């Protein structure tokens, strides 16, 4: 009798816990996305409305910034202005697309084989080398900015987009992320393939790539976010504005053009979200794969 009562109570508590945790998860999720919604609604408000809202910030008065979830007069004017009347925006947009593409392709060609080598082969100095890779990955950009500039200058690459592309191609971050994914491939499988006489290249292509696919994709989606939002590198190495990526356009619109800034952010974000949605499943599996160590 007592036992069943206890069980009932425990079940009740369990139910409650589940509901609470579900609410928690959903609540925090909404909270997490609130700034994004603010942004989206902001991009729909026109210049006049923004002006009114932002005034207190600029004039240092006692009033507050006004924020509505839905603007008084929703309009697509900001988008129209951005996409049709701001020629720089499109130039920078395509710069971003082009640079991201070059960087990601380069990272694929360079980083994936390197990650494979690190995770599958045991060679002398592997541990040390990999540690060096990790430290280099963590080192703040500012520390080597001048030295990098000197290298790029020596190659005659400064003030061309290659000055941003090449160093990013040889970033060690994707190596680190993909390495984890490849570690998940059982050693027996590789040994068996080797026994069957498969060449190293074949093993990499037939076994490594398909099994590591999700983690590779994940590393690239994360890499894309990184490249798409990169600020420091282009600012340091690209002097002429027509070469800049979109991320720099965003950092130069101040609160005075908040509507435009919101719309620009929304467009930038939309591209990221598109990529995100495209590779959603792989992304998650990939992140999973990079975290696992079997």
């Amino acid at each position, binding site marked *: 009798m007592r036992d069943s009562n206890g069980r009932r109570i425990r079940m009740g508590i369990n139910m409650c816990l*589940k509901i609470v945790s*579900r609410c928690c*998860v*959903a609540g*925090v*999720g909404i909270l*997490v*996305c609130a*700034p994004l919604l*603010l942004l989206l609604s902001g991009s729909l408000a026109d210049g006049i409305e923004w002006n009114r809202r932002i005034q207190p*910030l600029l004039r240092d008065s006692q009033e*507050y*910034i006004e924020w509505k979830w839905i603007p008084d007069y929703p309009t697509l004017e900001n988008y129209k202005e951005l996409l049709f009347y701001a020629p720089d925006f499109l130039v920078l947009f395509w710069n971003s697309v082009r640079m991201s593409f070059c960087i990601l392709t380069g990272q694929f060609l*360079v*980083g994936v*084989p390197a990650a494979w*080598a690190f995770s599958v082969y045991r060679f002398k100095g592997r541990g040390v080398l990999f*540690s*060096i*890779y*990790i*430290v*280099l*990955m*963590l*080192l703040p950009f*500012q*520390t*080597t*900015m*001048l*030295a*990098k500039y*000197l*290298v790029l200058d020596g190659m005659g690459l400064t003030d061309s987009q290659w000055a941003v592309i090449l*160093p990013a*191609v040889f970033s*060690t971050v994707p190596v680190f992320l993909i390495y984890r994914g490849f570690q998940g491939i059982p050693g027996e499988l590789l040994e068996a393939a080797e026994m069957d006489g498969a060449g*190293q290249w074949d093993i990499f292509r037939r076994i490594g790539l398909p099994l590591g696919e999700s983690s590779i994709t994940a590393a690239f989606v*994360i890499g894309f*976010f990184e490249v798409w*939002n990169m600020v420091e590198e282009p600012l340091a190495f690209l002097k002429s504005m027509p070469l800049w990526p979109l*991320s720099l356009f*965003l*950092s130069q*619109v101040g*609160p005075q053009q908040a509507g435009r*800034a919101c719309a620009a*952010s929304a467009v*930038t974000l939309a591209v990221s*979200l598109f990529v995100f949605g495209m590779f*959603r499943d792989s992304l*998650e599996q990939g*992140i*999973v794969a*990079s*975290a*696992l*160590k*079997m």
Partner: protein
Amino acid sequence: MKLRRHWSCTLRNRRELRRAKRFLFLLPSLVGVSCFVLLPFGQVTVSSFFTVLTGKFVGLRNYGEVFQNAAFGLAAANTARFIAVGIPLLLAGSLGLALMIHGISKPDKYKYLYLLPMAVPAATMALVWKLLFSGQGFLNRILGTHVDFLGQGSAFFILVGSYIWKNLGYTMVLWLAGLKSISDGILDAAKVDGAGKVKSFFLITLPCLKGSLFTIFVVSLLNSFKAFREVWLVGGAYPQRDIYMLQNVFYNWYVNLEQDKLAAGAVISAVILGTVSLLLQRLWDSGDR
């Protein structure tokens, strides 16, 4: 017997060939990294012993100056504090969330919500910060006050908050992966043995997650350095004292032509990062065995 010898023979030849081929996998990356990352860093290391523009050898003087520099001290302390507060909070928060989500039957739709902030550009975040936390901002509207949250100690917590906001989803998914890998069998067995939820969490779940910890930690550390972008966009070269990060010092040294100090500072931080990551790796490897 004969056959086997033949096998081993070809195997040896192949092995050598394979070794060469293996190296080919690594070569492009190695060349590029040496050229674009290692070489510059080497140059920085060398130049940390010289004056930058006149090229005079000064031995360890630059290091001495850096260690005595009050701004560097403050920035290092702030960065350490940020890491010490931000990473544990992020790890704990995301683990808690991961556990909750793990318990829910169909968690997919929530997960994606959490992953969204990762894609938000830093410039946009800076704008949102200003709208939310400035003296006339949204938060003050709710509180009915006029406090510039970005201009005082609270800026640090805003920074931590935004760091967690941005990385929560990512870290959570990393944890989820670890959680999934724990076979239900062990947990069920523990239940049969009479272990409560709490007990089995500490005795089984946590130790099993240790494997994921290294990656999660390194990734979180990497992302913690990226929080500088928001600091820079909101506060410029001289932000509020508490969010004055190492990168700020490096940046300002750079602008003020103090490249010698910058070089010494870079080497110091690389040594610290190297030690930390080696220690962690060691710790992680030993736990594995």
